[in-house]
Structure formats: structure tokens, C-alpha cells
């Protein structure tokens, strides 16, 4: 019991500290401090890009969304009242921008087909360079798994996908997700549950334990 009280206190202290950091950063941004712009980018460009990428599953679209998000953040930082955390405010802008992009995509580019670039070609070189600390099998397995999950995420309802991505990839709490999506806590719970179930149906058992390495005997030629 004592431990849980201590945990609660430390969580509250961390929250207060984060809130203080946010307010300081926002104030510095309002004063147009160069350092503040740097700090905002270094803190948020990675998570915002990841979120946009997972919501859209397209690198170029995600890059465009990230630029739009930061443009809005820079221009509207004066309107930030501190009613939510800076993180949830920025994530909310990201989710809205991703929705707008997705809507635009479905209206205009649905019928476009890439001619000469495969998914493999479109990937960043950093993603292609092998990680020497892991075995090729693990690397290939993870890669395959990522592709499967990306494909499955793309198939599920965008409303559920947003909730699942925010919870399981971006690791937001239910309360933060409710703020980002602008819905009630109950709705968040329901969307996460349904999203996970939909994802499980799409993946249909492919993410169970790693398959054993099978050696297929072949006759010598």
C-alpha cells in the first residue's frame, strides 16, 4: 500500500514536471526563442512522424502531415491555453491532419497506381540496412510481421485504428486518447477493444509464437 502511494506521488510529480516543461516551452515559443523551436522539434518530430506513418501507412503522406502539423503548431501556439498537455494537443492536430489527408486520398488518389516502385524500394535506407546485433532470421521475421501488421491496420476501420495506434504504438493513456480524439473515456475503451479484435481477426493467428526453423531436405543435383 505504501509503495502504491509512493508510486502515485511520483507519477503526480512527473506529471506536474511535464506540465511545467510544457508551459515553459510554450512561453519560450511565444517569445520566438530559437532554442524553443529546436526543442519542440527534437521532442515531437519523431513521435508525430511515427503516429502519422502508422495512421496513414505511407511515408510521403506522413511527411506531408508532419509538416502541416508543425506549421499549425508554430502558428497557433499563441492559442494554446494549457487545458490539455502539449503532447495531446499536438497529437490531436496530427490525428485531425491524418484524417483530412485520408479523406483527400480517398477522393483524389484512390485510383492512382504506382508503376515502378515497390514497397521495398520506397523504404528508407535506414530501414533496409541490417541490424548486426540481431540474426537475419529475427530481422526477416520482424520485417514480415511489420508488413503484416501494416496491411492489417490498413484494413480495419480508421476510427478503431486511431484508437489502437494511439494506445499500443504511441502508448498514450486512455485519458490522453480521449483528449486527442475528443471523445468520452467509455468510447475510447470501446474503440480500443473493437480495434484490437478487428486487428486480431485480420491477422488471424499469424502473430502467434515464432515458427520453428524448418529445414527442407533436397536431393543433390
Amino acid at each position, binding site marked *: 500500500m505504501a509503495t502504491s502511494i509512493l508510486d502515485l506521488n511520483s507519477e503526480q510529480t512527473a506529471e506536474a514536471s511535464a506540465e511545467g516543461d510544457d508551459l515553459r516551452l510554450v512561453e519560450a515559443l511565444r517569445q*520566438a526563442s*530559437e532554442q524553443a*523551436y*529546436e526543442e*519542440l*522539434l527534437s521532442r515531437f*518530430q*519523431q513521435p508525430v*512522424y*511515427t503516429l502519422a*506513418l*502508422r495512421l496513414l501507412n505511407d*511515408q510521403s503522406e506522413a*511527411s506531408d502531415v*508532419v*509538416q502541416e502539423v*508543425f*506549421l499549425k503548431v*508554430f*502558428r497557433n501556439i499563441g492559442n494554446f491555453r494549457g487545458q490539455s498537455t502539449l503532447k495531446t494537443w499536438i497529437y490531436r492536430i496530427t490525428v485531425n491532419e491524418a484524417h483530412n489527408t485520408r479523406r483527400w486520398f480517398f477522393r483524389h488518389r484512390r485510383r492512382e497506381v504506382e508503376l515502378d516502385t515497390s514497397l521495398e524500394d520506397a523504404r*528508407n535506407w*535506414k*530501414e533496409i540496412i541490417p541490424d548486426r546485433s540481431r540474426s537475419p532470421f529475427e530481422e526477416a521475421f*520482424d520485417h514480415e*510481421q*511489420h508488413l503484416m*501488421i501494416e496491411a492489417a491496420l490498413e484494413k480495419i476501420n480508421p476510427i478503431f485504428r486511431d484508437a*489502437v*495506434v494511439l*494506445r*499500443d*504504438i*504511441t*502508448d498514450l493513456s*486512455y485519458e490522453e486518447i480521449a483528449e486527442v480524439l475528443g471523445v468520452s473515456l467509455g468510447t475510447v*475503451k470501446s474503440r*480500443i*477493444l473493437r480495434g*484490437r479484435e478487428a*486487428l*486480431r481477426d485480420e*491477422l488471424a*493467428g499469424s*502473430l*502467434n*509464437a515464432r515458427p520453428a526453423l524448418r529445414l527442407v531436405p533436397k536431393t543433390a543435383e
Partner: protein
Amino acid sequence: MSCEHVQELISPLLDRRLAAGEREKMLAHLQVCRKCDEHLEAIQNQRKALRRMDCAPVPAGLTAQLRVMASHERERHLSRATLAARFRYWSGRMELMVDNLMRPFALPFAGGLLSALVIFSVLVPSLSFHHNFGDEAFFTSPDGEVVLVDSRGGYVQAGYLDPRILPLNIAIPDNSNAVTLTVDENGKVCDWYVSRGQLTPELLNVVMFSQFKPATNFGLPTAAKVNAVQQVLPGRMRS
């Protein structure tokens, strides 16, 4: 607890959002129900796989673009901070706009102006002529010097005053003799009549021997009339 209910609670269980009592009941069910346990394991694996996707490397180009954008936005923000800064910003933009607009024209304009000046200064000596846009410019009366014959039969210039050649529009004085001459385009007298007083030998000399510069009309020689006037001195006047 039914399996359906337990499967609905798997998600809150993984997110630690179940009350202690409900959690205990659920765990007890999972220990005896293989189907629900497999369901839990599938969702857990799925979560683990999703968590491994939490860090996609940001493209280097995007990072650079964001830094450039941040720099522009900061400048924009600073330019709107005060009225003076705003004025400086807009005047700078206007200056840049005018500069950008004029720059493509500046070189051709300067070159054109310079070449026009050179060409004009080269051609102007050959183009220079007397411009006089008065009445004389279009029509000039005949003009000339009165020539007399001396005692030896040679031509001599007559005196300045007697007789004088006057254009028709100048009135002839009362106490004078005058002849009106018609001078052709070659400067020769082709016709004449006494317009006042009487014909004196001096006036006759003028009629017969004087050479005129012909009248001009738009620069071309033409025939015109002129008066030769000789003032009658009191001593010489004939009654």
C-alpha cells in the same frame, strides 16, 4: 463469467484498467478456459508486435525541411511582434518585390537607353537643320540687293537707304515712289508696275538690273511680289 464477457475484458486487463475483484475472477477463468487463454495470448502478441513499431526513423529530408520551416516561422513571428517590426517586415517585402519585378527589366532597359543615346548622338549632326516655325518658315518674300549702273556702265551696289526692297505687307510711306515687282523662282523680275508716285531712273535700275533671292514656299523657290521703294527727298521732289 462467460467466455464472451471475459474476452471483452481482455483489453482492459492488459491496460490495467480492471478493478481488483474483476481481475481475480478473470484470471481464475483464464486458468480453466483454454480458448480464452489463447485469445489473451493472441492479443498480447499483437500488442508486443505493435509496440515494436513505435519508432519509424524520420527521413533526413523531412528533418531538414522542418528546421527550415521552423526558422521561417520564427522570422515570421518576430516580424509581427511589434508595429515597427511589422513595418520593417512589410517594407522589406515590398522592396524585395519591387526589386524582383524590376531586375529583369533593368538590364534591357539600361542597354536600350544607352544604345538609343549613342545612336541619337551619332545621327544628330546629320539631322540638324534650321527649324523656324514662324510664318517665314512656310513662306519667305523675295530678298535681294539693289544694283545700280554707274557712269562707266558697271554694276555697283546701291546705297543702303535708296531704294529699299520692302515686303508687300509693309506699308509704303506717303512721300515715296514705289514699284511692285514680281520676282520669279530664279530671282529675276518678270513683271512690274508703279504702285506709288512715279518711275524714277533708280527704280528703273532696280527693275532692270537687280538680282533677287527668290521667295520660298515650304523651302522651295517660288514667284512672289515685292516693293522697291525710293523715298522722295524734299529737295528732289518733283511737283
